[in-house]
């Protein structure tokens, strides 16, 4: 039994994780003893927050593949996220806004096609920009992706006929299967986390495959990988495409969750936040993604809700300072992220103790 567990550690982890997530959702649906989900967390974390965590987890898993495994920085991930959200929102409001494709664009399955289309389009875009941009390295790549993200953000605000400008698009329909609406939030929760777990499964499979080993080889030494016959350029572009498609999926889910899109949730700040989340969770661990997103959200919500009581000040401003300090400190002392940072701390402490015992 133990051998089985150890051999299939990933599968077991995913099953346990899925059960935990599902039972949290079940609490909200069935309300045993009148307890709601938010009661479990002292009313700090709500269903709404959990959905957001799920959506961003999808983006961060993609970012992890790109930054942690392939070692390619992206400071413009919010751009892909935006692209996904906008394509999905534009396509699924075609019938209501532009009065085209009536009879097709207002059926229940159209938004699902739109999600697929937005993933395909964003992936295609990543393929186009990926080839030239991934020739750059380190600092230069970071800056180029940053520029790309900001350009997408500004254009989203500028093309008013298509994107609705800075006010954005409203009236994005809720998703449904046949007549079964995936709304209110506790139903949408299952969809989002189902997608998130699906993405995690795919990502862990990629990581443990030939592609994953190739990506890690690129991270450790690109020239060396190339000499060993790894087609570095192709793998890097593939990693970018996968991460962009993750971001697009998350963006689509976000658009249907908010039932609206506007440029604001896709600014440069969000790109940075995504990197922070990935860094906190650990850049080279897929499982770090939900953890990193969760930690950041928990800190933010705690600060927002409790700061006033504790310190008699408004929390919003301290939130950012603590964010910044946390990011700096984590990168200085645990550049591998909180998860592996803590693991290695524990390991070191244990080794220290066993040494003491020996002497």
């Amino acid at each position, binding site marked *: 039994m133990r051998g089985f567990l150890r051999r299939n550690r990933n599968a077991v982890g995913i099953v346990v994780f899925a059960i935990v997530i599902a039972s949290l959702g079940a609490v909200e649906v069935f309300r045993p003893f009148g307890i709601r989900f938010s009661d479990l967390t002292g009313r700090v974390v709500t269903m709404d927050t959990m959905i957001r965590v799920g959506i961003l987890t999808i983006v961060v898993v993609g970012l992890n593949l790109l930054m942690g495994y392939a070692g390619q920085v992206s400071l413009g991930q919010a751009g892909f996220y935006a692209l996904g959200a906008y394509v999905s929102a534009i396509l699924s409001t075609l019938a209501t806004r532009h009065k085209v494709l009536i009879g097709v664009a207002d059926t229940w399955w159209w938004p699902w096609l739109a999600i697929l289309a937005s993933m395909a389009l964003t992936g295609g875009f990543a393929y186009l920009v990926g080839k030239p941009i991934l020739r750059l390295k380190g600092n230069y790549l970071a800056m180029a992706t940053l520029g790309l993200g*900001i350009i997408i953000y500004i254009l989203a605000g*500028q093309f008013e006929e298509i994107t609705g400008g800075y006010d954005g698009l409203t009236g994005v329909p809720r998703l449904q299967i046949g007549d079964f609406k995936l709304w209110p939030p506790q139903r949408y929760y299952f969809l989002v986390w189902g997608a998130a777990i699906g993405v995690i499964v795919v990502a862990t499979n990629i990581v443990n495959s030939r592609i994953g080993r190739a990506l890690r080889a690129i991270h450790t030494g690109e020239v060396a990988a190339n000499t060993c016959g790894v087609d570095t350029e192709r793998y890097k572009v593939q990693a970018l495409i996968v991460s962009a498609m993750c971001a697009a999926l998350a963006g689509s889910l976000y658009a249907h969750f908010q039932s609206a899109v506007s440029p604001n949730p896709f600014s440069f700040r969000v790109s940075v936040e995504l990197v922070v989340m990935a860094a906190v969770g650990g850049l080279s661990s897929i499982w770090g993604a939900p953890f990193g997103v969760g930690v950041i959200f928990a800190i933010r919500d705690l600060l927002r809700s409790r700061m006033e009581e504790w310190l008699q000040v408004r929390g919003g401003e301290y939130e950012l300072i603590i964010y910044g300090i946390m990011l*700096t400190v984590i990168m200085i002392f645990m550049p591998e992220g909180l998860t592996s940072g803590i693991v290695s701390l524990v390991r070191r402490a244990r080794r220290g103790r066993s040494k003491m015992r020996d002497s």
Partner: protein
Amino acid sequence: MPRLPRDKASKIAIITAVAVALIVLTVFLGSRKNLQPRHYIQLTIDGVRGGSIYALMALGFVMVYSVTGIINFAQGEFVMLGAMICLTVNNLDLHLPPALKLAVSVVVGVLATTLIGIAMERLAIYPARRSPPVTLIIITIGVTITLRASALLAWGADPYVLPAFTTQVLEDHIFRFGGPSGDVIVQAQSLWIWGTLFVVLIVLYVFLERTIMGKALRACAVNRRAAQLMGINPSRMSMLSFAIAAALGAIGGIVLGPVTRPIYDMGLMLGLRGFVAAIMGGLVSAPGAVVGGLVLGVVENVAAGVTNPTYKSVVSFVILIAILLFRPQGIIGGSESRPEEA
């Protein structure tokens, strides 16, 4: 991406063709908006003003990058801090004549920002100096967030005003140069900005070329290991480069103060443009950075003038990506500065 031909003649031909195409495009767009020659002159003058600030910031980027290999995201926050500290001191009730008070607050603003720059290097960069560049970038982003949020806390989200240097009030003195079709306007503050850039360049030149410390700094930029073997302490040089970068940023922010309205989040966009300017100059060349800043300021302003002001920042990022892709060694610095190999 097609490989560009190597020989000089065809290179010049390509560059000329691109330049001509851009100029034709500009004039075409301008004619649709009925722009007169004086409008272009006006756009250029204002562009040089903005470009001078970019040049100061680009110098800060170059200073830090060439000595430490770090792209310092917080450069823009130095600009914001300089302007904010200066105007705060200037708003105090000090019983001094206005001109003297302004001078005092300028000095305080620059010194305080320099100290913040040094503190940043000691607290955040020094402990992680052996990390890979990506980690260091994220660290400077962390510092940036911290500084900006602290500024929001200290000064709130409203824009402030700094009086014009010449008149000591909000209203600036304006020079008008008449032409056949109308006036070209130059604000007195623009002259202050150009003068400041000029003085800073001379001081920086003397420091780098004529003093031992400046020479040590340059040695460190050329080859850190060799410099260390010659008895130069690279950690101290790293601190010095951050101090200079912070001072340059603060000076830029202060002279810019009267023409914009300083606000806690002004640093981000300014910083990114300063970086674009530094990249245009090849990221390790000080003269390149200055020229890059001025060129970027003019190009950006003219492009925004003939199209739509909101495209101003799009222009600089398109330039950024184009340069990174086609000429990562910069378009001004020449080919002796090599792109990063890490």
